[in-house]
């Protein structure tokens, strides 16, 4: 047995080694800022390795290419931003265990493995690594019943969806005799069992749909997002979702290419249901975290549109959208973290009434993120939606693009309501609107708001980058 080529795996190996180092270092270093800095340095080292890692290894099980690298970039960015907003927040929540940072790194490692998986077994293991770490993180505030409940709910439903994924993988293996994603399509076509293949595809889609919270597999999301620590909600509304899209792109567009007419039809139905439920139920929410949870469901519905378009244009639009979504969504959650003070959690619409009087700057940032989530120019959200809908129209789904625009217009109601409550009301009596003054959090807000505006004004390099990477 020859030594396998480890070059494509180097970013993951380095990242794992540094994660283990952080796990040990945390025993001796008490300053959480130092640990946070170590994680950020690890991320930088890993990001540096990624461009030199292109290749296929372990006989096709692990693929490092432009596509996976783009997603890894999103995951690492997500990790950095989460670390920046976490440092002070988890101290306020009295959950500042050093393992927090290591588990975040392990979760990111799982996502990186998912994005590079060329084999269904590797895909499943990467997914489990990511999910298991996220369950732990969701329950990190142990003295808070809501956090524990959210972790347990997430765990039970996550385990259930894993079982469904395994059934799907088992059926695909039975039908083709391989777990290699690249060989699936041709072998399935050769086998010719259409109905049986579709049953397997449905199973796989249900499991992935659970991970990215597509309706009707979204039931866990609002409760889990509301109960988990806000920094973790930001983390898992971006990272695992992007990882889910990474495997959907790989499995459906490559592995199940031959059945594209069938899964496309399924995805069209799911995406319309997702946009409808996400946007309409968000209107009723008065808790901002819950509202953002439904908004994140709706955004998954938009992002799927690019996969439905199914060509280079569509896939790169989805990838771009996920990158933009990372900035604007983490930005919005950062403002919520900013509003968490020693006395209370500011999470409801009533509590942010008149925020602009007390904190004009924080309100202005929230305004930018809400505009971007709605998709109003000149913010990044507009650019993201524009390219998604354009790809959709070019591939012949004009009616679906119209539906998406209509739901997008509905979403303006609940996003702009936040702005209205901040700017057009007087502050309520007895609500302490103290805000955090942590420097890392400020940096996270600076990065996210600048990027949201920069991509909105000058999208060219980002759009071209994603297109280059896919094509």
């Amino acid at each position, binding site marked *: 047995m020859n030594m396998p080529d480890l070059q494509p795996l180097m970013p993951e190996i380095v990242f794992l080694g540094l994660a283990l180092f952080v796990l040990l270092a945390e025993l001796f270093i008490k300053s959480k800022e130092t640990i946070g800095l170590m994680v950020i340095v690890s991320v930088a080292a890993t990001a540096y390795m990624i461009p030199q890692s292109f290749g296929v290894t372990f006989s096709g099980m692990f693929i490092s290419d432009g596509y996976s690298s783009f997603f890894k970039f999103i995951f690492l960015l997500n990790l950095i931003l989460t670390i920046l907003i976490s440092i002070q927040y988890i101290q306020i929540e*009295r959950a500042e265990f050093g*393992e927090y940072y290591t588990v975040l790194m*392990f979760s990111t*490692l799982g996502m990186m493995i998912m994005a590079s998986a060329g084999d269904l077994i590797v895909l499943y*293991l990467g997914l489990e690594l990511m999910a298991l770490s996220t369950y732990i993180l969701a329950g990190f505030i142990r003295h808070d019943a809501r956090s524990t409940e959210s972790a347990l709910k997430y765990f039970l439903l996550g385990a259930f969806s894993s079982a469904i994924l395994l059934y799907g993988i088992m059926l695909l293996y*039975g039908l083709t005799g391989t777990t290699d994603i690249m060989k699936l399509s041709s072998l399935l076509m050769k086998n010719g069992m259409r109905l049986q293949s579709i049953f397997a595809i449905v199973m796989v889609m249900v499991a992935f749909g659970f991970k990215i919270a597509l309706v009707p597999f979204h039931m866990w999301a609002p409760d889990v997002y509301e109960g988990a620590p806000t920094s973790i909600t930001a983390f898992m509304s971006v990272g695992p979702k992007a990882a889910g899209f990474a495997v959907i792109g790989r499995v459906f567009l490559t592995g199940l290419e031959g059945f594209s007419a069938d899964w496309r039809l399924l995805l069209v139905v799911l995406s319309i249901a997702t946009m409808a439920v996400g946007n309409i139920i968000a209107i009723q929410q008065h808790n901002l975290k819950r509202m953002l949870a439904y908004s994140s469901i709706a955004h998954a519905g938009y992002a799927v549109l690019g996969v439905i378009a199914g060509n280079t244009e569509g896939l790169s639009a989805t990838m771009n959208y996920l990158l933009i979504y990372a900035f604007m969504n983490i930005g919005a959650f950062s403002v919520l973290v900013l509003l968490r003070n020693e006395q209370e959690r500011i999470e409801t619409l009533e509590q942010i009434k008149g925020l602009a009087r007390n904190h004009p700057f924080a309100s202005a940032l929230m305004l930018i993120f809400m505009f971007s989530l709605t998709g109003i120019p000149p913010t990044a959200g507009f650019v993201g939606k524009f390219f998604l809908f354009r790809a959709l129209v070019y591939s012949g789904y004009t009616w679906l693009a119209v539906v998406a625009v209509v739901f997008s217009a509905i979403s303006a109601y609940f996003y702009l309501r936040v702005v209205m409550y901040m700017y057009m009301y007087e502050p309520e009596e007895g609500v302490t609107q103290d805000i955090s003054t942590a420097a890392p959090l400020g940096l996270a807000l600076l990065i996210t708001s600048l990027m949201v505006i920069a991509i909105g004004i000058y999208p060219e390099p980002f759009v071209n980058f994603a297109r280059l990477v896919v094509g």
Partner: protein
Amino acid sequence: MVEAFFIYFALMVVFCSVMVVSRKNPVHSVLWMLVMFFHVAGLYLMLNAEFLAATQIIVYAGAILVLFLFVIMLLNLKEEIATEHSVGGWPGGLALAVSFLLFALLAFTGFTVKASGKWSIQEVSRLTHTKALGKVLYTEYLFPFEVASVILLVAIVGAVVLAKKKLKS
């Protein structure tokens, strides 16, 4: 003769599974599950998979079931369970399960047997199942194996954080 054993094991697995989900007392459920695990191990033995049979008994019957029993005894749920059965919506669940089973059976009809490569039945029985599995696991499937080890590490870290660490007040 072999068929008789297979029918015995298969029927017992189905019977025990039904008993697991239909018992009111959770301790009884767990004990029925134990019986079921032994019969599943028997099925594995019939397939010449002695390694799987051993792990089935050591890991599932030995470790996981004991954990179940611990949890049930710690929680002391008896009275709650007796008054309110936890599987109230069973007709819907049964319908779902049956339709799922039918679909799964349909899907099985499409299964293909690929030409066996290096690991033919003769080769596996010559090397013994355990050795063959070990060889594949540490060469061809080395990468997934290592990822699995990271998953176990995360599970340990998580268990320590969520259960052991002292709460800060």
